[in-house]
């Protein structure tokens, strides 16, 4: 088996580690979200929901716990969508020519970049979990050590497949666009609806029906479902809404992510076959 994508991966990781500002900001930024947005919002939600009596018999989690899963998902989304940006810079600075003129098959470029983006998402997800628990998120409550390990692997599985999907998409956009500004514009257009039409920060139950449909097709919603299932449990309530997830529902969410990732890989593959870099 050809392992050419590992060469691309190696180089991208060198850059990730070498750019201290990039490295540190990408690690600190999700923690800041947790620290500021999470604590501020959770204080408000706690105050607003004092009138809502918890449904007896179902474990109740605070807003911080609820949104911590959303922050993992959001960070994965942003990191992955911008993960392809490096290709755009490489293309504009002529660095991609070396790779395009080499015998390396083009899908290996896609895989290499996706793999390094996925690695970054894993690192960030773990940092958010650790930091989240540190500031009071009730993750893995009452889990046995073996269960915790299993749950972390489950979260990483969801995060990994989701991030691959968006990294493929990002790579496809990067290879098709000339300017970073253009790509930035597309990214902003994409992130807004994906982020806000999801269950990352609030329940979708109160959405108008049309928006609910959108959120059901939104990969981010399915990622958040998976993370909450593994980090909090299959049956809990938060801010007055009950979340119970069956194994079937979990597998549906996973399937949506897999289908999305495959479709995005197809898109990237097609764009790369057509790409001319001189």
């Amino acid at each position, binding site marked *: 088996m050809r392992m*050419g994508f590992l060469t691309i991966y190696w180089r991208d990781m*060198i850059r990730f580690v070498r750019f201290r500002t990039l490295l540190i900001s990408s690690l600190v930024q999700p923690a800041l979200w947790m620290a500021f947005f999470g604590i501020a919002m959770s204080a408000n939600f706690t105050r607003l929901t004092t009138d809502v009596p918890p449904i007896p018999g179902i474990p109740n989690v605070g807003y911080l716990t609820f949104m911590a899963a959303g922050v993992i998902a959001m960070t994965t989304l942003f990191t992955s969508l911008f993960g392809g940006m490096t290709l755009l810079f490489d293309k504009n600075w002529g660095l991609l020519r070396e790779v395009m003129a*080499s*015998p390396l098959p083009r899908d290996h470029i896609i895989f290499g970049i996706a793999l390094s983006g996925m690695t970054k998402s894993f690192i960030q997800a773990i940092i958010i979990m650790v930091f989240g628990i540190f500031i009071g998120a009730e993750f893995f409550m009452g889990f046995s050590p073996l269960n915790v390990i299993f749950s972390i692997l489950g979260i990483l599985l969801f995060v990994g497949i989701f991030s691959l999907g968006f990294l493929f998409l990002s790579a496809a956009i990067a290879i098709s666009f000339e300017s970073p500004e253009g790509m930035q514009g597309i990214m902003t257009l994409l992130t807004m609806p994906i982020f806000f039409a999801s269950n990352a920060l609030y329940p979708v139950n109160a959405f108008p029906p049309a928006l609910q449909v959108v959120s059901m097709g939104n990969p981010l919603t399915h990622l958040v479902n998976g993370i909450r299932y593994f980090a909090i449990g299959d049956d809990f309530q938060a801010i007055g809404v009950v979340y119970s997830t069956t194994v079937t529902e979990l597998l549906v969410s996973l399937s949506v992510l897999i289908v999305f990732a495959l479709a995005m890989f197809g898109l990237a593959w097609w764009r790369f076959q057509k790409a*001319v870099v001189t």
Partner: protein
Amino acid sequence: MAEPIIVVSNLAHRYGDFEAVKGISFSVDRGEIFSFLGPNGAGKSTAINILTTLLHIQQGSASVAGFDVATEPAKVRESIGIVFQDVTLDRDMTCWEILEFHGSLYRMPHKERRARIEELLELVELEGKRNTLTKHLSGGMKRRLEIARGLMTRPKVLFLDEPTIGLDPQTRRRMWDYIKSVNEEGTTIFLTTHYMDEADQLSNRVSIIDHGQIIATGAAWDLKNMLGEDLIYLETSDNDAAGKLLQKMPEVTGIQERPHGFYAQVNQDGTHILPKIMDDLRIAGIRIQTVNLKKPSMDDVFVHFTGRDMRDDGAEHPSSMHAKTGRR
């Protein structure tokens, strides 16, 4: 008998309505240094991009190292090395990493790769810079590292696109020495340049390319000889009359006008003809203000074949070239 390693026939390429390359044919022999000489925008880079498989071939055919660029691009890629016109080094990787990355891209076995890196760092005298980030290298060092990278995989043909652009004269001469020594070890070199002296000093054969067409091909020496033995430059009180008078002389094979005077091409040793020319002009009542005698240069060859000075249009100055070399 030399066998061709690059064969190009009727190669044409257009970008929309613009015809960048208009049906060129040429071949490069194994082991030679071959130059494409022409101003910027002449079609040199387009041709090199097609030969290196970065651009799809639109019309005509081309083969490199025995492989067709249209049907066997992967084989072509494995057989060639490329040094691009702009610096294409990742600023945040070390010299060693640049070469390691390149070797891995081409699937060189680990042991061979590591040995080759040491060999090449020595060849281009960058052993001491092994762990230096490329952003801390001088322009000449960067170019040397790029040449080393181009040689990593022991290519049969090394493509050099404007290899000494933006380098100081001393560094350029050293680059030429490197290129020559690489060639002596058996690598065929295809280079494009808009520097006359580079084509002249470095290559076995030169093709002059202008507006997407090859205008002349031959050894630099032969091309220069086509202009005659010597060039005599004159500025006189009446350049038109003087030119007409000289054209009648059997030794004068051509007149090239210049802003303040003209060149007379002569087919004999100019030192013998010059006194006769000066006598004839004086008899005709034309006063000579300036006189100069020189051997034809590649500049003169270019003007001769294209009818204009290469610097007149498009040829950029090195100082304005490098807007694109920095990263981030």
